[in-house]
C-alpha cells in the first residue's frame, strides 16, 4: 500500500473534554480549515481529562505486533506515559478508508503520520502549560504524561491541560524529536495485550458471541468446480439443535444452535455433487507444465549486457528448481460472524482487508456503505490468507437467509483444502563463471502464476516488464554484480485458487537464486559466504525495475552474520553436520542474512542453530524484530522439511496438521538475531522479509552436511536415498 507523506490533522471534541487529533498520512491541516465531511483520517489519538491516551488504529493485529509497535511510536513522540496508552481497533467507515494490513507495511507506513500527530499534540499541551505558567514554551518539555518546566520545577499532567490545549490551533509543522531523544522507540517492549493473551481473554474472530446467534458449517465441493445438486436435508434436520439447511455459493450450510450441531448436521447431509464442470487439476501435471514453460525465453524482466563483447564463460552451470504449493494453515481457521438485517449488517471478521469487505458486503446486500459495520477482531494468524474475505461473504449469505446472527466456522480440512494456495513455481537458472572464478553470466527464468483472486490481472501491454516484475520478486532484483544478466518470466495458467502467502512471490525465487549461488560457489570450491561478498562489490546503489538496490547494506548483514556465527568455511564439522548461508533484500528495504547449522542422520534433518543478521532500518521494538525473525525461520523451515499441498483429480489431498505438517517444538532451532544499527532513519517492514532466505540457507547447509543438492521442496527422508 502506498502512503504519501503528508499528514492531515484535526481536532474535535469527542465524548467530553479531550484533545483529539486525526491523521491519515496525507494532509497537514489546522483545526477548522477542513470541513468535517472532507476529513477522513486513518487513525485518531485522544487524550482525555484523566490523562489517558487512546490510539484508534486501523491495522489488524495478527501476531505481528502492530498494537504494540504503533502506539510506541506515538507515545514516544507525544511524551506519554506508556502505561496510560490504550489501543482501540478502528472500524472502516468515513473516518477509516484505508485499513488494509499487508505487504509488511504497517510500521513503515504509520511511522511519519503517528509521529506528526504525536508531536502536534505535544506542542499543543506544552503551549497550554506555558501559557498557564506564563513562560516560554521552549523552556518546557513533555515526558511520561506531563508537561514539565525545569527552571521552576513545575509540572502539569496531560489530563490537566487537555481542555486548554484542545482550543489551540494545530501546529502546521510540528517539530519531531531527534532520534537521540527517543525513550520508547528502540527499547525492548512487551506486548500491550500480553496479559490477555496468556489468560485466554483475547477475543479472536472465532470467539465472537452475539445474543441469539446461530452457528453454521458448510459442506464444500469435494473437487474444484463441483456444484451441489441434492442433499439429505431431512437427515441433517433430524440432528438435535439443527435449525435449517441453506444453499450458499460455496456449498451447503447447516445452521444449528451450537457449533457441534452444525457439524453433525453437515455430516448427515450426504450431498450429491454435480461434477460435470469439475476442474480436474493435478499438481504433478502442473509441475511438468511449469518445467516446460521454464525452458521458454519468457517475458524479459531485466537484461544487462556488457558494453563490449567478453569472452565466453570458462564454466557454465544449469539447474532447475521447484517450489511447491503450500497452505497458510493459521491456527484460527477461517470464520466470520454476521448479523444481517433488512436495512443494515454487522460483521465480526478476522480480516486483513476490512474496507473491501465493507464495500463488497454493501454491494452484495444493496446497502449504503455506512449501513455495514465491520468489527475487525484479533486474528489468529493471517499470513496473507485473510487479505481475502470469502469466509465473510458466506456468513453474510447464511445470516441473510436465516434472519439471525450466524457464525460460519471452517473446519481444519475446510481451511487446508479450500484456501487460496501459495502457487507452485519452477525456476531455471544458468550461471557462467569466468576464468578467474567470477560470476560473469546469469540467467533466471521463473515459470509461475499470476494471482487469481477476483480474476487474473491483465498486463497493460503484452510483455510489460514492470507488470511481470510485480510477480517476480527475488528474480529481477538480483543483488549480485554480474556483467551479463537476463531474467524472464513465463506465466502459466493455474485454475485453483491461489493468492498471497507470507512473503508472496519471493520465497520460491529466493530459494532458487540463493541455492544456485551456492552451487556456483561450490563449483569453484569457494567459500559461499565470501563468494557472495565478492559479488556485492558495487559501492553505489543501482536500479532494478522500480527498486533501488543497495548492495552495501546486504554486504553489512552478511559480514555481521559471518562474524556472529563464527563462520569458518575450512573448519571440519562432525559427519552429518553442515553449515549454510543465504541472504536477501526484501522489496529493496529489509536486508537479512542467515547462517544455519544442520545435523542430518538417516534422512532426518535437524536444524540446530540459526544466526540471523537483519537491517530493517530504524527499529521500533527489538522484541518484535526477534519475534518476526523467529516466526519467519519456523515458517521457512516448515516449507523445507514439512508439508506441501498436492492436488489429484481436482482436490487438495491434505486435510489437517497430520498430513499437512508444520514445524513443531522438536523442530525448532536455537535462533539468534543480530540487528545492524541502521542509518536509514526510518523503519522498514519485517512481517514477510524473514521468510525468503531461510529455505535456501537450510538447503545449502544440508548440501554442506551430506553432499546432496535438493532442488525441489519439501525434502523428505526418502529423498536422501535417491
Amino acid at each position, binding site marked *: 500500500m502506498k502512503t504519501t507523506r503528508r499528514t492531515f490533522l484535526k481536532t474535535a471534541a469527542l465524548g467530553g473534554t479531550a484533545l483529539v487529533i486525526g491523521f491519515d498520512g496525507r494532509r497537514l491541516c489546522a483545526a477548522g480549515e477542513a470541513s468535517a465531511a472532507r476529513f477522513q483520517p486513518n487513525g485518531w489519538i485522544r487524550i482525555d481529562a484523566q490523562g489517558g491516551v487512546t490510539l484508534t488504529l486501523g491495522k489488524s493485529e495478527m*501476531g*505481528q*505486533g502492530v498494537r504494540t509497535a504503533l502506539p510506541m511510536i506515538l507515545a514516544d513522540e507525544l511524551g506519554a506515559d506508556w502505561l496510560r496508552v490504550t489501543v482501540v481497533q478502528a472500524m472502516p467507515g468515513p473516518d477509516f478508508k484505508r485499513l488494509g494490513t499487508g505487504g509488511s507495511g504497517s510500521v513503515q507506513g504509520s511511522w511519519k503520520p503517528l509521529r506528526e500527530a504525536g508531536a502536534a499534540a505535544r506542542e499543543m499541551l506544552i503551549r497550554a502549560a506555558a501559557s498557564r505558567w506564563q513562560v516560554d514554551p521552549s523552556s518546557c518539555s513533555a515526558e511520561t504524561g506531563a508537561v514539565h518546566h525545569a527552571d521552576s520545577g513545575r509540572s502539569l499532567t496531560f489530563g490537566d491541560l487537555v481542555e486548554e490545549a484542545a482550543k489551540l490551533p494545530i501546529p502546521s509543522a510540528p517539530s519531531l524529536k531527534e532520534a537521540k531523544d527517543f525513550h520508547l522507540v528502540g527499547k525492548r517492549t512487551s*506486548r500491550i*495485550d*500480553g*496479559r*490477555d*493473551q*496468556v*489468560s*485466554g*481473554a*483475547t477475543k*479472536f474472530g*472465532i*470467539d465472537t*458471541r452475539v445474543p441469539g446467534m446461530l*452457528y453454521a458449517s458448510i459442506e464444500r465441493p469435494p473437487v474444484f468446480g463441483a456444484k451441489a445438486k441434492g442433499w439429505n436435508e431431512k437427515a441433517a434436520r433430524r440432528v*438435535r*439443535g439443527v435449525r435449517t439447511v441453506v444453499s450458499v455459493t460455496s456449498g451447503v450450510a447447516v445452521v444449528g444452535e*451450537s*457449533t*457441534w*450441531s452444525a457439524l*453433525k448436521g453437515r455430516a448427515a447431509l450426504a450431498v450429491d455433487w454435480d461434477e460435470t464442470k469439475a476442474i480436474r487439476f493435478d499438481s504433478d501435471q502442473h509441475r511438468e507444465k511449469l518445467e516446460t514453460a521454464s525452458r521458454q525465453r519468457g517475458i524479459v524482466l531485466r537484461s544487462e549486457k556488457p558494453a563490449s563483447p567478453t569472452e565466453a564463460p570458462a564454466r557454465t552451470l544449469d539447474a532447475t528448481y521447484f517450489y511447491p504449493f503450500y497452505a497458510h*494453515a*493459521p*491456527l*484460527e*481457521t477461517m470464520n466470520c460472524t454476521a448479523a444481517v438485517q433488512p436495512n443494515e449488517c454487522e460483521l465480526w471478521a478476522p480480516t486483513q482487508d476490512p474496507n473491501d469487505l465493507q464495500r463488497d458486503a454493501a454491494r452484495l446486500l444493496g446497502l449504503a456503505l455506512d449501513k455495514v459495520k465491520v468489527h475487525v477482531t*484479533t*486474528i*489468529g*494468524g493471517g*499470513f496473507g490468507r485473510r487479505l481475502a474475505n470469502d469466509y465473510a461473504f458466506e456468513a453474510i449469505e447464511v445470516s441473510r437467509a436465516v434472519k439471525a446472527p450466524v457464525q460460519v*466456522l471452517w*473446519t*481444519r480440512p475446510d481451511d487446508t483444502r479450500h484456501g487460496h494456495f501459495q502457487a507452485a513455481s519452477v525456476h531455471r537458472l544458468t550461471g557462467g563463471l569466468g576464468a578467474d572464478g567470477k560470476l560473469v553470466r546469469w540467467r533466471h527464468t521463473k515459470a509461475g502464476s499470476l494471482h487469481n483472486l477476483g480474476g487474473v490481472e491483465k498486463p497493460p501491454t503484452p510483455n510489460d516488464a514492470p507488470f511481470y516484475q510485480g510477480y517476480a520478486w527475488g528474480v529481477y532484483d538480483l543483488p549480485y554484480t554480474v556483467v551479463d544478466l537476463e531474467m524472464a518470466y513465463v506465466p502459466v495458467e493455474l485454475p485453483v485458487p491461489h493468492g498471497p502467502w507470507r512473503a508472496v512471490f519471493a520465497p520460491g525465487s529466493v530459494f532458487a537464486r540463493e541455492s544456485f549461488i551456492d552451487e556456483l560457489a561450490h563449483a569453484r570450491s569457494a567459500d559461499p559466504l565470501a563468494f557472495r561478498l565478492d559479488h556485492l562489490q558495487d559501492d553505489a546503489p543501482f536500479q532494478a525495475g522500480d527498486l533501488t538496490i543497495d548492495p552495501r547494506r546486504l554486504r553489512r548483514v552478511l559480514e555481521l552474520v559471518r562474524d556472529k556465527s563464527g563462520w569458518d568455511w575450512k573448519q571440519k564439522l562432525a559427519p552429518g553436520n553442515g553449515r549454510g548461508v543465504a541472504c536477501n533484500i526484501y522489496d529493496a528495504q529489509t536486508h537479512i542474512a542467515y547462517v544455519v547449522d544442520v545435523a542430518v542422520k538417516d534422512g532426518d534433518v535437524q536444524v540446530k542453530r540459526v544466526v540471523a543478521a537483519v537491517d530493517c532500518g530504524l527499529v521500533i521494538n527489538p*522484541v518484535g524484530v526477534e*519475534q518476526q525473525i*523467529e*516466526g*519467519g*525461520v*519456523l*515458517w521457512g523451515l516448515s516449507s523445507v522439511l514439512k508439508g506441501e499441498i498436492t492436488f489429484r483429480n481436482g482436490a487438495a489431498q491434505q486435510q*489437517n*496438521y*497430520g498430513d499437512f505438517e*508444520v*514445524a*513443531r*517444538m*522438536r*523442530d*525448532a*532451532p*536455537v*535462533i539468534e538475531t543480530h540487528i545492524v544499527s541502521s542509518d536509514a532513519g526510518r523503519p522498514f517492514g519485517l512481517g514477510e522479509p524473514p521468510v525468503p532466505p531461510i529455505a535456501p540457507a537450510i538447503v545449502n547447509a544440508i548440501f554442506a552436511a551430506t553432499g546432496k543438492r535438493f532442488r525441489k521442496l519439501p525434502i523428505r527422508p526418502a529423498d536422501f536415498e535417491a
Partner: protein
Amino acid sequence: MSAIHLTVNGQPREVDVDEDTPLLWILRDSLGMTGTKFGCGVGVCGSCTVLENGQALRSCQLPAKEAVDRSFTTIEGLSPDASHPCQRAWLEEDVAQCGFCQPGMIMNACALLREHPDPSDEMIDAIMSDAVCRCGTYPRMRKAIHRAAAIMRQHAG
C-alpha cells in the same frame, strides 16, 4: 441427550447437550468460555487443551458422556490475574505472537511441569511437540518453560 453435570474451574455446571458433544464445544458454546480454542478437531494441534487433575487433555476428543461428573481447569481458571508461574514466564519471555495457540500451549506446559519439575530441552520437545504454533514461538516457549520451572521451584523453596 440430557443434562450433564461437570465441574469447570471449581464451579459445578449443568449443560443440556447431546452426549457426543465434545467438551470443547460445551466450554465454548454452552458455557461461553472461549479461552479454550478450536484448531484441528482431531486432537493433533493442542489448541483445545484443558487440565484434569493436572494432566493435559484434548477437549475436542472428550465427548460429553465421558465428561460427566469430572472436573476440568481451563485457561480462564489458571489464575485470576495472570499470576500462574507459566503465565508469568510466558509474559517475561515475550512468547506470544498472534496468541491463538497460547492458552493450549500454557495448559500443556502446566501438565509437563507437574510431571517434570525440572525438564530438559529434550523432554520439553517431546511433550510440547503434540501442539502446533504457526507463528513460530517455540524457541521462546522453551525458555519460558524453564523459567516457569524456576519460578515454581522458588515458590516451593
